């Protein structure tokens, strides 16, 4: 195994050109998910019940609405990064590109839908 070209050694990016950024973002969003999903778990356990009235009233408050919005961003981001790794391991060539494009569209669409629902609940409530 060689040491690459001179300019390649200067850039220090390795053969994949990226990876550290992806790896770090996976960890940063993992910390966000750890805090936010545990918040959701505790919140579900602390609510008196999970009826429409109870949950919609709860989610319309500023702090739960903000935490839920952050949870959507962090979890969809983390899921998108994680699924990319699976796609890269099991799918080759042009199919890989097509699946990653689809993954991006679905991740952004899902997060946008979730954020819209939270905003609607927060602005319609109380």
């Amino acid at each position, binding site marked *: 195994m060689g040491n690459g070209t001179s300019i390649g050694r200067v850039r220090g990016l390795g053969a994949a050109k990226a990876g550290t950024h992806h790896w770090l973002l996976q960890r940063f969003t993992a910390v966000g998910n750890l805090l936010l999903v545990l918040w959701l778990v505790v919140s579900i*356990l602390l609510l008196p019940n*999970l009826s429409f009235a109870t949950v919609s009233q709860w989610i319309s408050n500023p702090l739960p609405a903000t935490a839920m919005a952050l949870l959507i961003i962090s979890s969809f981001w983390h899921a998108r990064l*994680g699924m990319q790794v699976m796609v890269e391991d099991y799918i080759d060539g042009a199919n890989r590109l097509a699946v990653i494009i689809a993954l991006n569209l679905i991740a952004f669409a899902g997060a946008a*839908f979730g954020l819209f*629902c939270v905003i609607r609940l927060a602005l319609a409530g109380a």
Partner: protein
Amino acid sequence: MAQAGTGNRPLSPHLQIWKWGPHMLVSILHRVTGNGLAIAGLAALLWWLGALASGPEAYAVLSGHASAWYGRVVLVGISWAFFSHMASGLRHFVLDIGAGYELGANRLWSILSPILGIVLTAAFWALLLLR
């Protein structure tokens, strides 16, 4: 040049070649539960938020499915996937800082991570159903 002969490279031995150990199990479980959560967990989250934003009728439809036996199976599965992924993810944080690679410690936490996931899932449903 990068594309030349990429199909002709030697492959590393795959899963069925190795004698199974807890480290392999916890690694595969982390991927399975993570991708399961990405698909089923986020879909359930969006259904819940969408039903809340749509109104009581949509929420009643969701509640009907969620309290049926198959809905309970899916929700228990999602909660198990989360707690297992969280436990093995915390193990990854320790490994990321360069700790926990000694054979005994690595094996111990490979065994404890999935057990912790099951214990937390059971505790969550016990608290939820017994409140």
